[in-house]
């Protein structure tokens, strides 16, 4: 079952992600995808993640598609203006790649080409509106399209953002702009997540809980300190600290989390962050 069908049929959706290579050798990316074949409904392809230049997302999506995977085409606003983004989206649709996830994107100066000009002609809300326009048969300037793409439109949200209210207002804008499902930033506190999720689902959108497996207490502390919108509760950090096999403990924590929120959301998005090989173990543990 692909992502679209999972979401529309009410099946608990499972996605993960792969990163395109720096270079033209896609074998490793395809190998990572291979491990997850049959375990996930779709694989996200990141777009020059963290502003580090890589093989283009669209090409990577085509490779995955050709290998029989369902790909989610992530589109950021950092590197392309509205013309380039629209034409790439049309290009993607022409290859049958119809899952898109609209993001604003990390800033250029944090990446490996800090001197580049950042574009941000659009940001996520405006991009979502344009994707909806395309789906409706017109481009952003109102011109008619010959051949109309169909998209499953996703966006992202950070339920633990600080401060939260501006983030929430932006989330609502994204909903109004036409996002139908949301993938969240990594979440760890079931209670706060489910309360957000309940609110969001009330607006008629699907929510995929973002999970990142914690492999050590140090990693948890690092994320708390450096990654915006991530709140690993102290109890979990203590648990990892006390463990002789923190990786196993991390997997158990993740599985337990999925267990706890499963009935309150529409799926889960497992971010591998450099440990793709662990994803199947997580899914096993969570019974997915």
């Amino acid at each position: 079952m692909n992502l679209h069908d999972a979401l529309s049929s009410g099946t608990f959706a499972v996605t993960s992600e792969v990163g395109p290579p720096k270079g033209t050798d896609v074998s490793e990316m395809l190998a990572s995808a291979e491990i997850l074949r049959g375990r996930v409904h779709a694989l996200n392809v990141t777009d020059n993640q963290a502003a580090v230049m890589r093989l283009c997302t669209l090409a990577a999506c085509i490779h995955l598609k050709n290998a029989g995977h369902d790909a989610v085409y992530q589109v950021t606003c950092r590197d392309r203006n509205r013309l380039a983004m629209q034409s790439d989206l049309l290009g993607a649709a022409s290859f049958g790649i119809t899952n898109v996830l609209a993001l604003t994107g990390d800033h250029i100066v944090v990446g490996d080409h800090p001197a580049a000009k950042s574009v941000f002609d659009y940001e996520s809300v405006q991009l979502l509106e344009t994707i909806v326009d395309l789906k409706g048969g017109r481009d952003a300037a109102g011109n008619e399209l010959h051949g109309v793409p169909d998209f499953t439109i996703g966006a992202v949200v950070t339920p633990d953002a600080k401060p939260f209210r501006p983030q929430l207002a932006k989330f609502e804008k994204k909903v109004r702009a036409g996002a139908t499902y949301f993938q969240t930033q990594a979440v760890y506190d079931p209670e706060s997540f489910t309360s957000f999720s309940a609110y969001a689902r009330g607006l008629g959108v699907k929510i995929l809980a973002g999970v990142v497996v914690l492999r050590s207490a140090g990693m948890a502390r690092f994320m708390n300190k450096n990654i915006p919108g991530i709140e690993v509760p102290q109890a979990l950090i203590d648990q990892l600290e006390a463990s002789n096999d923190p990786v196993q403990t991390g997997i158990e924590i993740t599985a337990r989390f999925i267990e706890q929120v499963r009935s309150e959301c529409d799926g889960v998005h497992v971010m591998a962050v450099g440990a793709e090989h662990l994803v199947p173990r997580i899914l096993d543990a969570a019974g997915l």
Partner: protein
Amino acid sequence: MIVVRRKPIDEILKMVGRHTRVMLVGCNTCAAVSLAGGQKEVDTLIELLSLAASRKGFSVEFSDAILERQCEPEFIEKLDSQGYDAILSLGCGAGVATLAGDNDKPVYPALDTLFIGSAQGFASWQAECSACGSCVLGETCGICPTTRCAKGILNGPCGGVKDGTCELGDRPCAWVEIYDRLESLGRIDDFGKTMPAKDNSISARCCEWDMTKEGDDS
């Protein structure tokens, strides 16, 4: 005000080092106010260049002049640069350009023009405006998202904001500030209005503004 900053000496020396008599021209408006182009900075730069030039074995002679505003031809007319073979401007880009357009000698910039900004106490400025040609400050309570948001985005904070600080870590998140200010003014509903992407054609077409020209008198 336009905020400027002195270029690295090497860069300046590469431009003026091949000349023999160079006049440094300061600007007593924005460049002076941003502490980079007044009499004092002109004097300091002359000392610095003289020292640097003599260490490199160049023999360049420098002298100074201050203009009230370099971006006005009438002020520039007062400048007597006879006998000099180059001019080093301590004005903003507009000053350099105006001087250069009015002169038969090469005019070099000693400063980099940074932004249009406001003073934040002594020797400290904040970028406030990007001269985009289509102002949205009315919607954002006077905080320019195009300028003060690192990404210049128009519809609320990105996911990078951490405890109210921008993803780049060097400034408060403009969108959190806009949110707070809208809220304190009882205008929080306005935050929910989606702002369309900027019409960049306005600035693209705005190469001059001549009110005396027919058709330009909007």
